[in-house]
């Protein structure tokens, strides 16, 4: 047989939510996923 075991790849690595994805990526954005608009000097 070509292979003895079926490989399964978990594309999420167990991360359930986008905020977990961002934290794992080392992002510390405003409210987790909002870009800060520096030009206007306020949160966008």
């Amino acid at each position, binding site marked *: *047989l070509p292979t003895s075991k079926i490989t*399964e790849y978990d594309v999420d690595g167990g991360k*359930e939510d986008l905020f977990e994805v961002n934290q794992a990526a080392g992002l*510390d954005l405003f409210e987790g996923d909002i870009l800060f608009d520096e030009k206007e000097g306020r949160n966008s």
Partner: protein
Amino acid sequence: IIGDEYLWPTTVPYYFGDDLDINAKGVILKAFEQYRLKTCIDYKPWSGEKNYISVFKGSGCFSSVGNRRVGKQQLSIGAGCDRIATIEHEFLHALGFWHEQSRADRDDYVTIMWDRIEAGREHNFNKYDDTTSSSLNVPYDYGSMMHYSKNSFRNGTEPTIVTKIPSFSDVIGQRMEFSDSDLLKLSRRYNCTRTTTFLDTCDFELENICGMIQGQGDQADWERVSEAIGGPDMDYSNMGRCTGTGYFMHFSTINGMEGDSALLESRLLYPNRNYQCLQFFYYHSGNVNDKLEIWVREYNEANPDGKLRMIEVVNGLPEPLWQLHHLSLAISTKFRVVFKGTKGAGTSTGGISLDDVNLSETTCPEHVWRIKNFKSIMENTPMDTIIYSPRFRSKYGYTFQMGLYPNGTSTSPGELGAFAYLVSGDNATDDNLTWPCPWMQITMMLMDQHADIRKRMSNQRSITTDPNQKLQDSTMFTWDNPRKVGMEVEDADGTKYFRGPGYGTSVYLTQARALTRDFIKGGDAIFLLTMEDIAHLVSSQPVPTTVEPTTPSNLCTSVKCENNGVCVMDNDKIAVCRCAVGNDWWYYGDRCQYKSSNNDAMVTAVVSSVVVFAVMLVVTVVSVVCLRKKYKKKMNKTGGVTTTNMYA
């Protein structure tokens, strides 16, 4: 976010960066389709508009809130963000929506546990007062896809958000689809009156049967009933959950002659897209020879009364259950859908029934995997045990299969896991296919079986076959022929075939959520599976040759001047209102919202003069009195003599 300047036009221009994953591009297009089906927001490739959304692969998933009018507005769909709900969430930010728990009234509904938040992350729990953010008169929505989950940014094991109504604690943080309130808010913000691709839905609960009509020239009628002789004894929409409701349409074949037919015609429909998907549930309790046919009546100049065209005969043996059926249409003129029931030869103890009809200008899913007694399967399947769907052959020739962990895996207990596999099909067919399989996107959708397609919150995940991807620590390609990279397996019926590597997620959906809404109906769960060729997304999106210049009037489109005020550009940079002025009156304020007049000014002048005079008088009197007292005291201290005029 309050402020019309943050609105986009209802057709939003987008540009896909070359760095985006191909799967992400495909999922973004699916998210756009949900917007088109459920809202009036549409998307189009950027063709030079000044402001557009540039989607790129950053290190995470993020967006700004609202149209910042910066030209190229960036929205990141990074690795791990290629899920439809994540993309819909980010685009809702871009369209002007904050997170649900940052509403001004959030403290009435949730308690933020500040001491449980990871140090330095407290800023993630801001709230905005009602001058910055509007709830658009929609009640707080625990089910919003813009709400954090209960454990977001926690420093330990305790939740950071506690719902005031405890039963909502596991509801918050859903990432399946738009909630009804998400859609209502979006519709209110963008003044939507209709959606882009939705055409019709009918659960036959109302006596008007959604404007459907009994066709002419037939020998029998469809009847609106809540149960039928021979079955079904309940409808599909409500499944017996509400006493006094639960209707469906039934064509009885117990009586009558062979060949008798009944036509049920939809109201007139006006297509935009030239392709449609008709979806409905039917119940066949008649004779095997009874037939259900789908026709369309098309109207054009040559056929002002409509011309009937048969689309499909719904093949299916009598079976005591409501069966889901999809039908692709390609209609470009005004039309009606016609359900034609025909009595066949032989005796019948029942008939044909219809319920939960939906028609939209979308593509139909191709394959249906129905899992009976799904709750029992979730409860009784051991952890780390997978069940497989039947093999499905796509229209491209590739055969694939879905695997499901109904009771989770040891790494993700309490979660359904879902994986997709290429499997071997017919030898001759497989030999003629391109290997490794190039850019096929497989989508696994657990269908929310709500009667109305617009209110469904189905859960879906997609994976794409990258022909260049190699197996870990191997020179073999992941998506090569399963006979080459797969393993021989045997079905319950003894059929042997090869199954390639699986791609998917162990956190497809929590079991708790799978028990909510209509994921399980009549005990059954329905997975809709599709394979789509998305190779066209590999190439770059063309960049427009001309970009719309900055026109002063552009900014004025977002500024509303009241009371006949006129918007003008100040230094070609800022839009300001010039207010209407009369002989003795004028408007003022940044939007000309206040009125004043000469009379007002005169009254103001008189009042202020009197006030000033009074104040000065008081000051003078006080000063005189104080001075007199002061000098009197001084004179007494120095022993001075006070002379008085005794004759006065």
